[in-house]
């Protein structure tokens, strides 16, 4: 099973836009941040920043929220606005 990961904006440009996190268990958003930081070289520091928010299946959620293995997680740096 895999969690599909999207890095938006500058993070997509720096680390690649699409990633996959292999997982068979339910993870917290906090754990997704940590595992992604381990897996994607150079991303660990930025993934701990509170202004980098995560959306699960298109909804921004707190770090305590849960992520199932079939869900999509988007990593959202601060919006620039339009």
């Amino acid at each position, binding site marked *: 099973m895999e969690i599909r990961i*999207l890095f*938006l*904006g*500058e993070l*997509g*440009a720096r680390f690649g836009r699409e990633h996959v996190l292999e997982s068979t268990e339910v993870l917290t958003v906090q754990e997704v941040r940590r595992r992604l930081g381990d897996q994607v070289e150079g991303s660990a520091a930025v993934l701990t920043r509170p202004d980098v928010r995560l*959306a699960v299946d*298109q909804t921004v959620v707190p770090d305590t929220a849960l992520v199932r293995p079939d869900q999509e997680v*988007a990593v*959202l*740096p*601060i*919006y*620039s*606005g*339009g």
Partner: protein
Amino acid sequence: MAITALLSRDPPRAEAELQAFLNGRTGDGAVVAFVGLARDSAGGGPVTGLHLDHYAGFTERSLETIAADAGGRFPVSDIRVIHRCGDVAPGEVIVFVAVAAPHRRAAFEAADYLMDRLKTEAAFWKREDGPDGSRWIEPTDQDREDLRRWSD
């Protein structure tokens, strides 16, 4: 009340949008349109283009939420928002906003509010490209200050 908020890869055609928005409108005295254009310079340096990254689905919903909030907050008749994504050349339209209302104060305020929200809370990630490279943009202090005018 008709509220539409759309994302478009093509430049919004401001004149055609305005014409369609005005057509047959006999109960409203005021239409305010805002057209946001890509500038050819920023912060003293030339800008050769913009890229507006978006998150499909999520970004559209951010536009819809902002438009709906404006419709709930001001006594207006109709709102139309069309926001560009992707690559934008200087002089091209980034955003078209139109608001119709019986009276002009509400139309002005709703358009102003829409733009303040869109400039800070629309889910875009903007890259400015120039001769010395590219940089990713955050809302300016002025943008954040403008937004605070509407806090309840």
